[in-house]
């Protein structure tokens, strides 16, 4: 019993972490059809910036906010100056975003050195809670709650606000949306800022669990892609379900079939994609 409880909590925490990682990617892909392969690097940059802010004396929460803002800003600049020219052209986008990922990763190594570093959890969230016989870190409870809160906020933004309505309209039909006076240019930049800011925020919130180290980007990018594809590219609900599904599959898979630890993430994905090529919640595209 304790086994199931504690591993389910672990699954939820990992799922929450994965949602933080993937929601921004999914948002951007949904609206702009851009697979931002610099997402992992932006996540790592967020973690480093958060750490730098904490070391500079800011509190954890202020650091998280600062980092999200800075990474979002960088995302906006990326979109305005570079990605904009490449609308709808997959291969140049891949080349550009991977190129940017190389630059960010190497810049992090230059600026902060290669030493793996700890990003301490805020003091009010350190320590563990007891649930039955299971011991569970308080910070992970927070990650579960925070990811649900972010999911809810994003859902409200998309479904209940004017901006959300515009985004949804643009997702469905960019040309029509422009025809009725939605400035897709501003909208695209805004969404890209939001998506990358979420990556930055995710980096800081993930920091106390993952720690901050070079190649964090390479460890995270495949996970983000997995979540997005399993859930269905561009669907927020899909990213949410995908993240938690992977959290459970990964955790229980590793525990129950340790010999498959390396492939446990990819076997279900191959299975899902060969049955439902658009992912669990994806819509068929044109």
């Amino acid at each position, binding site marked *: 019993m304790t*086994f199931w409880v*504690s*591993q389910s909590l*672990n*699954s939820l*925490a*990992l799922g929450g*972490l994965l949602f933080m990682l993937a929601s921004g990617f999914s948002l951007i892909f949904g609206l702009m059809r851009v697979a931002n392969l610099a997402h992992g690097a932006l996540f790592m940059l967020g973690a480093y910036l958060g750490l730098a802010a904490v070391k500079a004396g800011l509190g954890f929460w202020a650091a998280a906010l600062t980092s999200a803002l800075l990474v979002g800003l960088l995302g906006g600049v990326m979109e305005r100056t570079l990605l904009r020219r490449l609308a709808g052209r997959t291969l140049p986008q891949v080349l550009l975003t991977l190129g940017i990922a190389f630059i960010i990763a*190497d810049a992090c*190594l230059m600026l902060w*050195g*290669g*030493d*793996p*570093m*700890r990003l*301490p*959890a805020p003091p009010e969230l*350190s*320590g*563990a809670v007891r649930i039955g016989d*299971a*011991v*569970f*870190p308080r*910070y*992970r409870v927070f990650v579960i709650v925070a990811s649900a809160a972010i999911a809810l906020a994003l859902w409200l933004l998309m479904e209940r606000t004017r901006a959300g309505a515009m985004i949804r309209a643009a997702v469905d039909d960019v040309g029509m949306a422009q025809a009725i006076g939605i400035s897709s240019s501003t909208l695209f930049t805004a969404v890209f800022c939001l998506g990358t800011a979420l990556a930055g925020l995710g980096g800081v919130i993930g920091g*106390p*669990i*993952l*720690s901050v*180290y*070079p*190649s964090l980007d*390479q*460890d*995270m990018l495949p*996970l983000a892609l997995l979540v997005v594809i399993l859930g269905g590219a561009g669907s927020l609900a899909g990213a949410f379900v995908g993240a938690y599904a992977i959290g459970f599959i*990964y*955790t*229980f898979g*590793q*525990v129950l079939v*340790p010999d498959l*630890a*390396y492939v446990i993430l990819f076997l279900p994905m191959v299975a899902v994609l060969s049955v439902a090529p658009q992912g669990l919640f994806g819509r068929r595209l044109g």
Partner: protein
Amino acid sequence: MPRSTPLGRSVRAGICAAALLSLSVPAAFAQQVPIKLGFMTVRSGALAAGGKQMEEGMDYCLAERGGKLGGRPVELITVDTAGQPATTKTRAQELVERAKVDVIIGPLAAFEALAIDDYIRQVGVPTISPSAAAEDLTQRKQNPWFIRAVGTSAQANHALGEYAAKDMKLKRVATIGDDFAFGHETTGGFQRAFEENGGKVVQKLWPPLNVADYGSYISQLRTDVDAIYASFAGGNGLRFLQQYSEYGAPVKVIAQMTTVDEGILKSMGKEAVGVISSGFYTATQDAPGNKEFAAGIRAKFGYDPGYYTAGAYVACAFLDEAVKAVNGKVEDKQALMKALRAVKLDRGPYGEVTLDEYGNPVLAVTIRKVEQKDGRLQNVVLKTYPKVSQFWVYDPKAFLANPVYSRDFPASKNIGN
């Protein structure tokens, strides 16, 4: 192997060059031509932290000797292997074929050293490993051109196994370690010595090297054992110890050297305090010459030296001794290799150290404990095992007849007890 292989040619060329030098060139002039020293480190990617420490160890060694080894000036050619085997091979070719180095110090990771192992044999360039610990490099796949300046994966862990059973009186231990050769070999060495001294390893977990989160593994770790043995490399020790403490750390942790190495200890917090580990080098160890070395590194770079710093320094010091022994004639590669294999230091980070006939150091292994001291975390020595060889107390022949330590060797007969 046909006689016209590069090995044959370069050896003969080397001998000819040496003969020419000794005949026609005045000794004083030969002393002025710099030794070309190829240094393979990592500056890009995940292993860059270790690479930086290696560079600092090397830098310190050369500065201490006024830029000269064995009286000859040194031209240091540093290359970045990026922690990739294929890149390492190309960098080795660059050093040997383009820069025409006399000696190589490097590379960092075991899989990098294995990637160039055959190439080193073919071209016959003396190579000193400042870090790569894979057992077989000085055991079952001995390379005539290769010696090591650090212990093998298991060398210090045999000692920890005995210490855990005899001195700490631990009966049952669960192990968790990185799922790659270094993790398997370190854990295997510990398990063998621990079980032969009456202990039982009752659980073994192998999280993948790039696992996102240790949570699910920590929840599986048994709490009815006397200790957890942790074997992690790079940043994984940091993540594991931090997460283990978040889960309440119900059982005390004993660890393999790199889990709490000085190079990573500086990034750790109070979760590391109390961890007992073993190592072939400890910054605080009382070995002749180490006090000066550790203080010097601390003064110059601001931290305590660890695995990589000491490894690169000793590799460089070995070379210094060997160059002295051949009177600076490094062009005679076979003579240099012979001198390297016979190398012996009385002072330095390790104190007294010699090489066994396989080219691996015989040195003191310390058992140490992490303590908060002088405002920082330090490994404090509890016990010293002098003159530990890679074969521990076993007969080399019998040892080598066994397979190399792996997930399946030694056999785990006490799992689940």
